[in-house]
């Protein structure tokens, strides 16, 4: 059981970080369909940083930059040029996939394969706490980015509810006119929010490279950005809610792996549908009750 929960936490971590970023973007009023690309770019930048310096910490520093670049692209096209948010998100996902693969080869000089063995961020047990039964190993012996995710949920909650900037950001997603009337700059808020979204989601990608597998491969995010997007909707655009939804998705995937080993009479392909079916069922169950930020996806008037 502990192991099952631990698995859920591990699977949820990159999703939750990405979802945290997505909350910034969506609460500012821009659909976060680009999470997949931001994660991938973050994973790539993290790998490059760690590979070039042999220091995972360098990767950690570079990851937000990678994701942020994709965020910047979304900000320019979707906010500045007021293009459709959804399609812009899809476009940067394609771009990130292509760009990371291509740059990977350039770095490997002339297209030869790079064998990237990255130093991994290892678990940092918190003294005393990690010795607690059950929750000790589960919660207090985690690698740094997992702590960061939990911390991120806390900080994000505080940011959104307790700071002027967070207040302005939320208001921009609800009623940009009110922000403008109170002397704010909705377009600037949205652009910054989307770029920050990229940076945080980039860290989510770094979880994969720096904390879980220690290498970068093409398209290694494999749809996790989309799951994070679903999670933040299920979690109603709140950090803890999204994290909880990610845990549910993580649990669904962990359950899927365990279900196979019970030897169910259907093939692995059917079992593998489980996480998607669960996500779809939860979304359908929420139905229209999941209220979007009021002004999401609506371009700002061009004068502002």
């Amino acid at each position: 059981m502990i192991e099952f929960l631990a698995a859920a936490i591990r699977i949820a971590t990159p999703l939750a970080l990405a979802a945290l970023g997505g909350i910034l973007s969506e609460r500012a009023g821009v659909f976060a369909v680009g999470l997949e690309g931001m994660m991938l770019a973050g994973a790539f930048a993290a790998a490059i940083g760690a590979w070039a310096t042999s220091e995972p910490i360098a990767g950690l520093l570079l990851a937000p930059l990678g994701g942020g670049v994709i965020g910047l692209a979304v900000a320019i096209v979707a906010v500045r040029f007021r293009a459709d948010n959804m399609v812009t998100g899809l476009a940067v996902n394609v771009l990130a996939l292509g760009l990371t693969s291509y740059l990977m080869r350039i770095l490997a000089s002339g297209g030869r394969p790079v064998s990237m063995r990255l130093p991994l961020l290892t678990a940092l047990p918190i003294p005393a706490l990690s010795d607690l039964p059950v929750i000790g190993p589960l919660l207090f012996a985690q690698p740094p980015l997992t702590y960061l995710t939990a911390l991120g949920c806390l900080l994000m909650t505080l940011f959104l509810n307790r700071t002027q900037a967070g207040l302005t950001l939320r208001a921009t997603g609800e009623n940009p006119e009110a922000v403008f009337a109170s002397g704010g700059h909705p377009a600037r808020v949205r652009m910054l929010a989307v770029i920050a979204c990229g940076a945080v989601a980039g860290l989510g990608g770094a979880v994969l490279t720096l904390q879980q597998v220690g290498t970068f491969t093409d398209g290694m995010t494999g749809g996790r950005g989309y799951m994070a997007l679903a999670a933040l909707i299920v979690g109603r655009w709140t950090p803890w809610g999204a994290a909880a939804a990610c845990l549910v998705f993580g649990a669904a995937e962990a359950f899927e792996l365990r279900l196979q080993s019970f030897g169910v009479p259907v093939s692995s392909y059917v079992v593998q549908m489980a996480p998607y079916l669960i996500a779809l069922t939860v979304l359908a169950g929420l139905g229209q009750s999941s209220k979007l930020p009021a002004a999401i996806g609506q371009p700002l008037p061009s004068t502002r």
Partner: protein
Amino acid sequence: MSDAAPAADQTARLQTRRLRLRRDGLGSRIGVALLLSLLCAAALIALAGHNPLEAFLAIVQGAVGSQHQIGASLNRTTPYLLSGAGVALCFRAGIINIGAEGQIAVGGAGAAAAALALAGAPSLVAIPLALVGGALAGSLWAGLAAAIHLGRGVHEVLVTLLLNFIALLLVQQLLAGPLGQPGAGFLQSSLMPRSAWLSHLAGFDVHAGILIAVVAAAALSFVLWWTRFGFALRVSGSSRLAAAYAGFSLARLTWGAMLTAGALAGLAGGIEVLGMHRRLIEGFSLGFGFKAVTVALLGAMEPLAVVPAALFVGLLESGSLAMQRQIGVPTALITVIEGLTMLFVLAATAARR
């Protein structure tokens, strides 16, 4: 109606069509966007230490360098054209359907199942029925998305996306089970009966799919501009309030657009199976969904303009293989170009909205 009206209206119609494409300088804006993305690509090629001109030349050669290659490029264009036209129709109506990938996959499976079941039937029966099977399957999958979207209010992007993942697994399951070829070296169905193969056009190594696709795009354009349904779609895509005011049912329009797009994507899957692979094979639809979106955008959501857009992507991809073969520029570059093109076109076409 006056006597002179028909002739006058003929010219007016032509003008309308031309205007529509030239409106806001849309055509030239898309042109500039394409140019910009190619410039970026050139920079990336140079970064990799290759000569951009040489690489582009290789792409052109690979795409249209011989009769055969022209044919190959057209074959490549076919699924993009079909699914892209369907996606364009949905976009027109303001429905963001990114489920083409799943619909193509399921459509391919539907066509393969039908063709295998029709072994022994003459081509004239087998091919149309198999294609109808594909279209029906694709429609069904899109209909499922529409039902969840309309019935439960889940955003169509999420529904179609999640259904893509499920569709791919479903096809794998079919290939590992009932549709699989026993003893094959890979997840694939048996070879389709020869009577179900799409025939090639004389003189070119191009299967009849491209004709079907062009006809379908033309038909879709007709639907969009010459039918009440198309009119309603365009109205609802521009303003949902106006659509309600005009007395159109948004739900019914969503069903119509999704089922049509699903049928076209399913048809694309069927054509891939009957014309290219001649069997259902694992992963045959990978990446088509996003291409459909690219193509729809490039084509400014006008089914007829999707034809050159699909051709562009088809030529680009078919040429890219030659580029890697001859110069060694990684094919990932093509994905970069597609992503950049989407972004630039989005920025260029949204600026005037």
